[in-house]
């Protein structure tokens, strides 16, 4: 059977369940008696098992099954939660994640049986009571069949022992209301047949609802369904086990109706007979009895289903739809096209103002353009919002990581996170996980001192790492703060000299900030020994590259003995920005507006030299200036004008002035990549299409500071 169309859904849901499990087990570790948590874990494990079973991932199913067994025991109070158990469960979660990765990459769960973990899980079970182990083994025997199926058959089996024939005629227990009774009597009067039927669908069937729908469709062609249990809506929503019952009115014979139903594929059994309205007393009693039975039977399932629904619904507020990111990209591209088209209109209208057209016509044209501008801006914002994802989806795995690091490094530490709800564009979110993880590992390994050292220094025994995220204008700032030893600038310098990054003379002239920036050089690590966690020389430079690639920047501030703070600033969106359009010779360039401080008109005679570099004194601050024409290899000007237009840009608290020829004005621009093959210099971060169809390059002012 082809399950590939469900694979994506399976992967998404498994990821959600895994994250949920990780969170819950962390809570459990802190509060071993929290019964809500235990229930939640049990439910999630159960859902995972069911899902893996349906998809035919037997190894994953087996592992989750054993995990479920353990929590089932804990839930019943037969077992306590021990730290060892938590470790095993975490290992188990990691193994499931491995399966999932394997499935994502190859659509297959791989060959790893994870016998050791299963053994450990079973050892946990055995540790408490031997009798139950046998039971759990027995139940794990019938694993070859998909979980959902095996469960259903076990439950059904229990019922069948009582009275097979009667119990299977579930239609006898249908509760009928007065108007339905009338319908039946009426039908009889018209000489139509009234049948009661119970349809059993094959337990391996994936699309139960579709099969049921076909049954209904078949009957509607020859008669009428006056009542079904569960209701039609529930059946469509797949809210039924593997059987449903109905009352049918039809002129066809019993056999004909039966044939129509059984002709639908994957129908296991159809029990159908003439139906008589039961006498009132009978109805009530049997109905109640049936309901009770049904209720009991369904309790467990309902609870799990409800829990699963709850777990799924938790992160989503209000109504939501899952949308493929590619579809959003298409939408985004269309919005981009619209903005380009609008810019085209704007440039046409600007040219026309020179002409002789009547003023009134021009004004209304401009009004329409302004209207269009408002609409496109709003549209852009809405689409951007759709693409925004809370940062939570990335950071939620960090508490678990810090816990593991804490054990591995033998340091006590805790992670405090704030602002998980801060939203970023999906494309940024996808990329930011690894750099953040690197920084956290860095803080845990290099930043925090060992527990013994902390005690000696009179610091709190448990080290703290903070991860704060917040929106700041058009940027999102993420801080990673530790209360560890801080960065020893002298040590950094010494290490840089040893590695040949700088000479001793250079080292002496470095400011503290410049020295710290050395950390971001490739192959730089001050960790004395290489550990599993960090110190392999890849790290901060990769972090920096990645973040700059996203259009953001990283900064470090540190105080020796008190801690270190990494500040990452990221743009809210990557695709469309506000920019200042400038001219250098006859070429047009765009400078992102969010990095611009002011625009100044300065006299050439005001330019001073500091260390052979041009600077200006702007209201008491000395700011270096960069001549864009030189950086961009433009032909030199024939004669230098007396006045220069300087755009002051900032990066963190550093400023630089960019000398340009002309200002063209502010514009909303769509950032486009420059294509492959061409080796783009660092100062160019992309390109945009102008209203007249030309291309303007976007200046990355950060690279010039």
């Amino acid at each position, binding site marked *: 059977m082809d399950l590939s169309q469900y694979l994506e859904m399976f992967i998404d849901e498994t990821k959600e369940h895994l994250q949920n499990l990780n969170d819950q087990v962390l809570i459990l570790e802190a509060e071993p008696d929290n019964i809500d948590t235990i229930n939640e874990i049990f439910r999630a494990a159960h859902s995972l098992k069911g899902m893996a079973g349906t998809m035919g991932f037997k190894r994953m199913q087996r592992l989750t099954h054993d995990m479920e067994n353990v929590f089932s025991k804990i839930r019943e109070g037969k077992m306590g939660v021990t730290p060892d158990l938590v470790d095993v469960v975490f290992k188990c979660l990691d193994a499931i994640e491995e399966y999932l990765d394997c499935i994502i990459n190859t659509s297959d769960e791989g060959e790893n049986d994870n016998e050791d973990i299963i053994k450990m899980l079973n050892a946990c079970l055995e540790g408490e009571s031997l009798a139950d182990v046998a039971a759990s083994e027995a139940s794990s025997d019938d694993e070859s069949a998909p979980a959902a199926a095996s469960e259903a058959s076990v439950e059904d089996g229990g019922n069948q022992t009582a009275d097979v024939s009667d119990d299977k005629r579930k239609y006898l227990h249908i509760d009928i209301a007065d108007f339905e009774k009338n319908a039946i009597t009426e039908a009889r009067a018209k000489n139509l047949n009234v049948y009661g039927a119970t349809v059993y669908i094959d337990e391996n069937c994936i699309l139960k609802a579709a099969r049921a729908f076909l049954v209904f469709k078949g009957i509607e062609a020859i008669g009428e369904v006056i009542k079904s249990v569960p209701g039609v809506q529930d059946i469509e929503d797949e809210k039924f086990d593997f059987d449903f019952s109905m009352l049918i009115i039809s002129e066809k014979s019993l056999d004909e109706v039966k044939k129509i139903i059984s002709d639908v594929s994957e129908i296991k059994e159809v029990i159908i007979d003439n139906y008589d309205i039961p006498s009132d007393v009978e109805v009530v009693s049997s109905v109640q009895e049936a309901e009770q039975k049904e209720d009991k039977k369904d309790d467990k399932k309902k609870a799990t289903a409800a829990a699963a629904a709850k777990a799924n619904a938790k992160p989503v507020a209000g109504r939501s739809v899952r949308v493929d990111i590619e579809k959003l990209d298409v939408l985004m591209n269309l919005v*981009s*096209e619209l903005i*380009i088209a609008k810019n085209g209109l704007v440039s046409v209208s600007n040219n026309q103002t020179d002409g002789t057209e009547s003023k009134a016509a021009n004004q209304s044209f401009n009004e329409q353009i302004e209207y269009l501008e408002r609409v496109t801006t709003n549209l852009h914002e809405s689409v951007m919002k759709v693409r925004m994802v809370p940062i939570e989806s990335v950071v939620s795995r960090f508490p678990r990581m810090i816990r593991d690091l804490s054990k591995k490094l033998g340091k006590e530490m805790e992670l405090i996170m704030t602002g998980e709800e801060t939203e970023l564009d999906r494309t940024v979110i996808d990329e930011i996980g690894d750099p953040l993880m690197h920084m956290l590992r860095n803080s845990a390994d290099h930043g925090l001192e060992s527990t013994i050292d902390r005690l000696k220094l009179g610091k709190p025994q448990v080290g703290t790492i903070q991860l704060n995220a917040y929106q700041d204008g058009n940027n999102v700032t993420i801080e990673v703060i530790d209360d560890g030893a801080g960065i020893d600038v002298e040590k950094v310098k010494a290490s840089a000299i040893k590695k040949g990054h700088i000479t001793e003379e250079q080292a002496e002239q470095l400011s503290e900030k410049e020295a710290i920036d050395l950390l971001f050089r490739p192959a730089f690590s001050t960790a004395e020994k290489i550990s599993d966690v960090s110190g392999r020389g890849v790290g901060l430079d990769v972090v920096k590259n990645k973040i700059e690639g996203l259009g953001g920047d990283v900064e470090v501030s540190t105080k020796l003995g008190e801690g270190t703070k990494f500040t990452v600033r990221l743009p809210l969106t990557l695709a469309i920005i506000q920019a200042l359009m400038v001219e250098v010779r006859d*070429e047009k360039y765009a400078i992102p507006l969010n990095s611009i401080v002011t625009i100044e008109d300065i006299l050439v005679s005001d330019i001073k030299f500091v260390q052979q570099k041009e600077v200006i004194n702007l209201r008491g601050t000395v700011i270096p200036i960069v001549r864009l024409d030189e*950086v*961009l*290899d*433009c032909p030199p000007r024939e004669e230098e004008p007396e006045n220069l237009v300087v755009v002051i840009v900032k990066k963190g608290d550093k400023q630089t002035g960019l000398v340009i020829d002309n200002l063209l004005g502010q514009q909303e621009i769509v950032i*486009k*990549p*420059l*294509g*492959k*093959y*061409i*080796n*783009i*210099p660092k*100062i*160019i971060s992309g*390109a945009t*299409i102008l209203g007249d*169809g*030309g*291309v*303007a*390059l976007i200046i990355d002012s950060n690279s010039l500071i």
Partner: protein
Amino acid sequence: MDENEILTEPKQYIVVKLDQEQYGIDISFIDNIVRMERITRVPKVQSFFPGVINLRGEIIPVMSLRNRFGLADKEYTNATRMIILKPENGAKIGILVDEVREVVTLEESSIEKATRDEQGVNLLGVGKYKDTLISLLNIQEIIQELDNA
């Protein structure tokens, strides 16, 4: 389809001119042929990239085939064309040629295998068509070289 069949199937090539030399480009790589458009210069890139163009909302780098093959610059004329190539599993790239002449169909038998010409240009072979010789460019390799450069 077995390998022999692929080899013997006649292929179509677009014949372009650089000075007096004729080059053939496998038609399956060609996305589009456009007239000269305004090229935006990009500073500090490889010397054989005059810049980028806007092709229906997509920004595409344009390479001068003359410069790439070590020929001197030549004024753009009315005959100058940009051929937009779309290699398999690759991004689009435009190449500038002096002139686009015609489309020819070459049988495998009329192609003599060769890997490079005197200038070191990456070739698939040299095709004989009527009385002329056409150097068939190995587009896949020529583009791959850019990635590695």
